[in-house]
Every structure is written in C-alpha cells, then in structure tokens.
C-alpha cells in the first residue's frame, strides 16, 4: 500500500505544527521521520493514523483519500513509544484484541495470535500480564499486536527510545528484517538519526513543521542539501566554519580571520565561484593530524571514544573537532597541526542556509 501526503497542514489554534507537507511513500517502503522532538513528526504520524484531523491537505492510502476515515477503518498497525499495552489484559488478549474487534472467530484468533507471537519470539509468554514482562518483551508484544491484523501500513512512534542501548541495537535489526520480510509499508518516527540511517529506505527530515529533506540515508549524509541537514545528520556533528573562498592559481584559498587553507578540489572550486562569505562544513572524520598541515591550533578537550579520540582544537576563536587514533596520545594543551580532506568539504550559503554544491 502506498501512502501519499499532499500539502498536509496541521495547526493547533494559531500554532502551526505541520506546514505544507508533501511526501510519497512507496508500497513496502520503510520511511523514517527524523527531527528534533516537537518538530511535527509525531503529529504527522497521528494524522496518518487518523487520531488527528488534518487542518488542510490530503492523505491517500493507495488511491483512497483517508482524511475522514476512522482509524479502525484504515487497517493500520501502530507501535507506541510507551508500548501502550493494556495492563489489565494478558499478552494473548492484548494481541488478540484487534482480531476480537474485527469479529474474527475464537479459533482463528488463537491461531493468528500464536503465529504472530512466534514471529516476535514471545510465543511462550502469552498467559502473562504486561506488567510481568521486560521492556524488550513488551515491545515485542506491541509489535505483535500491530502485526496480527496484517495491516496495510505499519506506524512506529519512537518505539525503541525506552529500551536500553544494547536491546535497542538488537530490536533495530529485528524490526528492519521483519519489515523487509513482510513487505509492509512502514513509517517510523524517531529523533535518533542512527536508527533512521540504519533502518530506513528513505528519511524525511523535519524541522519546525517543515520538511527539510526527503532522501536516502546515503544522500543525506554525503550530499546534505541544507545546513540543518548537514549539522543534524551525522555523529559527531559536522564542523561548520565561516569562511571566504578565493581562487589563487589552481588552488582555492579558504580563509577567515584565524586560518588560511589552500586546497585543491572540485567542491572548493565550485565554492570559489561564489563570492563573499560562506559556511564551510567538514566532518570530524575528514580532519586529520598531519605534521605539515595547514591548520594549527591548541587542543583543549580530548574525548576518548574507545577506538578513536575526538579532539577539540581551538584555532583563533574557531573550534574544529577531529577524530584521531588513540596512539597519538594527544593531551589537552598540545599544539597540533591539522589537515582537511578537501574532497569531502561541504559549502553553504549563509543567507539561505542551503548547500551551494547540491542544489
């Protein structure tokens, strides 16, 4: 089932929660809504679920406009952050509830619940109450309940955020695998970019009610179209430095009050054509220690990340984060020289905050 969203608007009183949202979700696709909390992604999801009424615009399931269709008639499944299990019902009753409401016979209920529970690996917990289950098990029950009626669309509202880090990793893989296997169109709301990047086919990044980007994870990471995407996607976040670019022979000189960096790259050339102030973005993994690096600064924080150290270098009044191998044993206060991978640079127009490379 494909889902189309056109010009979707939602406001609460005078507060606009979702503004002119356009999205198309292909049948069987796994789409993540990514954004900081309160950016309108959950509101959009609830509109798709039929809990909220859109103020304007259209939501289409296949060819059917579902704006005024009751949630129970949309044939969707939803998994909530709080799991929303019914505490007074056993696991079996929880999973069977959608079937019961559909009027499915008791025998069939039993079969389908068992099947769904087995898929989720909770087949032996059916007689328990939700209160007697661990967080991961509850999450599986919630998923089982969402799946049991074989929904056309599966909605996830930050389903993993209440789990501990380890479990989150496992569940992430399982959900992804399950979705691929069943091929149910899925929409997944999260504020955790790793989840979005690892699970989704496409990611819709939202900010303040607006759709910032709608792309595959790779494109979002490598070709961020806006400054927001660039700084939001990726961990640790991208370094952003104000800069001016000027052509000097075949090299491009990137400079500001504290640094001067001659580079040779296609991207830099493109930037040099844009006169005036620019914002340069570079990911910490693209900053390297180099004895003859063009940049020089003082380390003032070292964050050991295990395999690597992240160092924060002060260059003039600017700061640059870099990932370096632990063997260098850099300490705060050391002066270091840095080099930058010129092929991975990003450039943004400070006024429009849009990329000058990918538009």
């Amino acid at each position, binding site marked *: 089932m494909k889902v189309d969203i056109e010009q979707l608007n939602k406001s609460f009183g005078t507060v606009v929660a979702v503004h002119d949202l356009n999205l198309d979700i292909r049948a069987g696709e796994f789409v993540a809504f990514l954004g900081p909390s309160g950016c309108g992604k959950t509101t959009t999801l609830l509109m798709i*679920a039929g809990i909220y009424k859109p103020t304007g615009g259209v939501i289409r399931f296949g060819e059917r406009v579902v704006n005024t269709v009751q*949630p*129970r008639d949309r044939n969707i499944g939803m998994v909530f952050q709080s799991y*929303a299990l019914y505490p007074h019902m056993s696991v079996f009753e929880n999973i069977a509830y*959608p079937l019961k409401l559909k009027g499915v016979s008791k025998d069939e209920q039993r079969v389908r619940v068992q099947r769904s529970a087995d898929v989720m690996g909770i087949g032996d917990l059916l007689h328990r109450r939700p209160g007697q289950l661990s967080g991961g098990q509850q999450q599986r029950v919630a998923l089982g309940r969402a799946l049991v009626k074989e929904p056309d669309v599966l909605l996830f509202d930050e389903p993993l955020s209440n789990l501990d880090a380890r479990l989150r990793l496992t569940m992430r893989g399982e959900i992804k695998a399950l979705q691929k296997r069943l091929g149910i169109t899925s929409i997944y709301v999260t504020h955790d970019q790793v989840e979005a990047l690892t699970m989704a086919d496409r990611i819709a990044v939202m900010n303040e009610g607006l759709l910032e980007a709608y792309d595959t994870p790779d494109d979002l990471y490598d070709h961020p179209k806006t400054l927001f995407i660039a700084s939001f996607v990726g961990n640790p976040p991208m370094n952003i430095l104000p800069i001016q670019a000027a052509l000097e022979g075949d090299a491009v000189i990137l400079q500001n009050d504290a640094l001067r960096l001659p580079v040779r790259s296609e991207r830099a050339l493109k930037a040099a054509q844009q006169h005036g102030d620019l914002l340069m973005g570079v990911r910490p993994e693209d900053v390297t220690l180099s004895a003859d690096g063009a940049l020089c600064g003082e380390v003032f924080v070292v964050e050991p990340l295990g395999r690597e150290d992240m160092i924060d270098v002060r260059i003039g009044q600017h700061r640059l984060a870099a990932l370096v191998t632990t063997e260098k044993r850099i300490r705060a206060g050391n002066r270091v020289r840095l080099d930058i991978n010129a092929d991975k640079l990003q450039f943004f127009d400070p006024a429009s905050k849009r990329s000058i490379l990918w538009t």
Partner: protein
Amino acid sequence: MNVDETLSAPLADLSPTTVVPPPWLKMLIQIARNCLVVTVILALLALVFGSILRPALEAVNVNEELTALLSWLLIAAIPPALYLTVGFTARTLRNAHPARALVVALLAATLVYGATLLWNAAFPAAQAAQGQPSLEMTFAQADSGVVIESIVAGSAAEQAGLRVGDVITAIRRESIDLAALQSRIEEEPLGTPFRLRVQRDGEEFQVTVNSIASATGAGNAALSRAAAGRAVALVVTAVGLLVPFNWLPYLLLGVTLLPLLLGYTWLIVATFSQETHGLLPVDSTGSLGGLTLSNWDFLTEVSRRGSVWTYTLNSFAIAVIMTAALLVLCSMAAYALSRMEFRGRRLFLSFTLILHGFPAVTLLIPIYLVLLNLGALPIIGEYIGFNTLGGIALVEIAFGMPFGVWLMKGFFDNISWDMERSALIDGANRWRTFWEIILPQIRPGLFALGIFSFVGGWNTYLIPATFSTGTRIANLPVYIQQLLGETNPINWNEIAAIGLFQMIPILILFVFAQEYLLNIYSGGSKGSS
C-alpha cells in the same frame, strides 16, 4: 529505628559527627533567647485574642467565648512550650554529649519552672489566693456517717446548732462519706450553703451552714496540682531528650485525636452498658458495673416503629442505588469531559466546576417542587417522586455528581493517551475504548468513588429526613435521629448500639478500603495540582 529515619528525624540534628558542642554559655543564652521569643509570641497572641479580638467581636454582637478560650489556652500553653523550647535547644547536644545534655536540660528546665511558677501565680490561678472554703469544722469517718470532731468556737456551724459528736449523713438528700464531703466543700465556691442532714441521739434534723474562707492551708490544693503538672512536664522533657525516639509527633497527634478516641470508645462501651457515666459503665443506681447485652435486642425486636432491618434495608437501597448510578454517570460524564472534543466542552467544564461548589443543600425547597412534578410523570413517576426511595436516591445522586465527575476526571486525565489511541487503531470505537480499555485502568478511582458514594448514601440524613414521610422509607440515620427526639425519653445506650450497628458496614469498608478513602480527594485534585 524506622526505615526512613533520615526523613523522619524532625528534631534531631542531622549530622551528629560534625556537631561541635557549643560552649555552655552560648547554649544557655540560646535557650534563654528561645524561651523569651516563645513566651513573647504566645503572650502576644493571647493578648490579641483576649484583649483585642474579644471585645471587637463583642462589639459586633458575636459570641466571644471561643476567643476567650483560645487566649486562655495560649496562656496555658506557655509553660509546656517553654519546656519544649528548652528540649529543642538542648537536643542538639544530645548526640554528642548525652550526659551534659541532661544536665543542661534539667538546669534550664528548672529555671523555666521557676519562671513559669511566677507567671502562673500572676495569671488566672488568682482564685487560689482567696483561700480554701471551709465549714470551720473537722470531721472523722464513722460507720453511721461523718462525725464532727471539732467546731471552731463562734463559727456559723456552732451558731447553727451543731455540736461535736453529731453525725452528718447527707448533704441535701445525697448520702455522703468523709472524702465526698471534703471534696464538696473544697469544690463549691465560697459562701455556698450546705444543707446538712444530721443525726443526733437517733433524731434527724437539717441545718444549713455556709462555707467561708478558712485562714489555714490557703490554696494549697490548687497549687500542688499545678506543681504536679509541672513535675510531669519536667519528666517528660527530660525523657524526651534522652530517649532516641521521635516521640513528640506521636504525642501531639495522640493529644489531638483524644476527643475522637474518647467519643468512639464511649460508643462502644455504651452499647454494652445499662447506663454510662462518662466512659464508665454503670447500673441503674449509678455504681460501676451494669454490663448488659440487652441494648442489642433491637436486632430481633419488632417495635412499633418496625424492625430495624427495614431501616437497614432502606439505607442499603439508597446507598446501593446511589453508588451504582454515580459510578456509571460520573465516569461517563468525566470521560467525555476529559477525553473528547465537542462543541460546548468549555461550557460544560466550567459548569462542572461551579456545581462543585454550588450550595445545593439550600435548594431543598424548590427541589421538593421538582420531585412533586417528577412524581406526576406517568409510569416512572411512582418510583422517583417525593416520598420514594428512588426520589431520595435521585437527589443524592445529583448532589454527589459534581464531586464525582470532578474526581473521575482527575483519574481519566492521568490515563495515557497512547493507550487510547492504540485501542482506536486496533479497531475499537469510543464506547468500547471507554468500557474495555479505559475503565479497567481507573479501577482505583472507581473504588474510591464507589466507597465514598456508598458511605455518603448510607449515612445521609437531611434528604431522606426532608423528602420522606412516616417510616416506610426512612433510613437508619433518620431512625436514630428520631430516637434522639425531644418527645421521647432518650435511651442513650440502646441508641448507641443502633449507632454502632449502623456503623458496622462503614467500619468494614474502612478497614479494608481506607487507602481508597484516603485517596479520595487527592484523586480529585490531581487534575489541577
């Protein structure tokens, strides 16, 4: 030592190891300062109540005795408050140097004792200075009565014709022994005429002797009682200082609860006694004893007013109807108000709030008219009009509703929205969601409201008393009140038994469901706290 000692150590200093014992002088100064502050505050308050508020209230024609009582209490509170102050201050020392703490406490308490003695002497115990009333005779106990041992020459007693050796048998018509005679003389105000029944040589006659102030032993009794009281306070202070237990809150709570405890104790004692004098069971002659089960005969008796079980049944019917209806009604209305969007929601909500504080009990007059009209309805009118159980229950339900809706709304507000959304997505409509998903979640709320409604319906007096006639549908409280009426001799002990009987279901609920009862208001105010 109890579990949450850290939080429940109101009086103890918190970190004994870090306390540096202050110098003796400093501590004594501190004690003196604290005592002074406490005294001044209490005295000021007493002044405000006694000398300012009281006349002010008098001027506007309001009874002033409460303020008088308060001011008196405040003055009386000064000595104990000072003891406590000393205790508080010296207590910091306790953990580090218990022995020194005791010395300081005793020393300071003795000082305070002396000071308050002076204070008390200047204050209301002034009558003690007047001297003890006396009949100017001395007595001895004999088999036949109280024998006069000696008479002051020229005294009123002598002039009345009493002689040594006369036997006093009674004051007025009450026979009396030595102890009773002496305490009577002591207690009655000066100048009280004592009508003594005297026997001399087998003849009986009566004389009246007025009591006068005696020169000797003036006011010792009153003072010694006060002294005993202070000694007790002193001991309590000292013990309180040394016993590592937070006794003060218990003491205060116990004291404030005392009237209630006494009252309920009486209720229980009375049901098994012929009569009671205070808390003591007595028989018909007024002497201790007279325990009986006959007060409970009402359980099987059918009197002119019918059997008590009829009233019980009526009580039960009102309570049950009210509980059931309120549960359904309030949860439905509260659910809509809490979780649904509809035109007029704001209006309804503000209405509920206003009703919450509406003086409905003052509307009994027009409600009577409403009931009359309801009673005129075809078919159902017979069950819900004036003088029907249904009508009474209906008024009770209406009166209980604003609170119930308010309470239930608080509980609904706390239910997770995701739960309800989930149910809707699973395919339920609002009614099923309400019934199958939400209601089971607010079971504590339903219990609380249910119990509260039942208690309310079971105990209700004013409405059945006003809207029923005769005894057909009267409930237990109406029955009890009617037994307390003025046209009938009041048999307190039988009524106490019926009262206790009436309380039994409540007490059972109380024992098994007090947590819900204790939750009742907090649930209701949650929505807005």
